[in-house]
């Protein structure tokens, strides 16, 4: 029985960071989308609605299989990215059904 404190080094920092990064990247994408919406940009910048969310989901999945505290971030990151995809899809669908011109 060891009650002594061992400094257990940074063995958990790497997985933790993947969830954190997932969340962070999703937040950046979301911020980009907000800017695009607020300046009424007609064509959404693909990096914010495709590349970055993909990366975020990838990192989030890594984060999911790691430690519990990272999991919260990973879940947020993945959820936000999925939201971005659904958002894009629904926007495309509804844009097409509004005043559609061939």
């Amino acid at each position: 029985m060891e009650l002594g404190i061992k400094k257990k080094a940074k063995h958990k920092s790497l997985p933790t960071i993947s969830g954190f990064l997932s969340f962070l990247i999703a937040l950046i994408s979301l911020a980009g989308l907000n800017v695009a919406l607020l300046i009424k940009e007609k064509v959404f910048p693909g990096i914010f609605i495709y590349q970055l969310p993909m990366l975020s989901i990838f990192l989030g999945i890594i984060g999911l299989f790691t430690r519990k505290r990272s999991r919260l971030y990973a879940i947020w990151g993945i959820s936000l990215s999925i939201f971005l995809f659904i958002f894009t899809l629904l926007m495309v669908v509804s844009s097409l059904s509004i005043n559609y011109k061939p």
Partner: protein
Amino acid sequence: MELDKAYQENVNDLYRYLFSLSKDHFIAEDLVQEAFYRAYLQLEDYEISNIRAWLFKVAYHAFIDFQRKNKRLIIQDQIEERGNLSMETPEKKLLEKESFQLLLNDIHSLKEQERHVLLLCDLHQLKYNEAAEILNMKVNTLKSHLHRGRRKVMERVKERMMVDE
């Protein structure tokens, strides 16, 4: 800042509690961190009348959640623990710590609710109403759990003494 101070004073207490729950140094250390994280997540500057009891509550829930997520892990740990027990080498450990471990094993062999009641009330000296609040049970229920738990522990101690003799 006062909250920080109050939290700091309870770090060791919380560690001992979580250790007695998990019987594992690493898990306890992790859960202490988790408990403080949660404590801050839930409130940063509210006033709480009884910080110690409140922290115990947070720690208790942190442990329960941990247990739920890692069911298999815990069971394995316990098996390992018991394995260690059979190959006990008392000379390697201090007497107090050995007896503490025996006590812990006794308590951990109880039913879950009895175990939690005993850990809070006897090992960590929380008041009945505080413990009842943490475990979300009525004080009377808690008392009966406590009574039954204590008797069972004594039975085990007696059994052990008889074997020793």
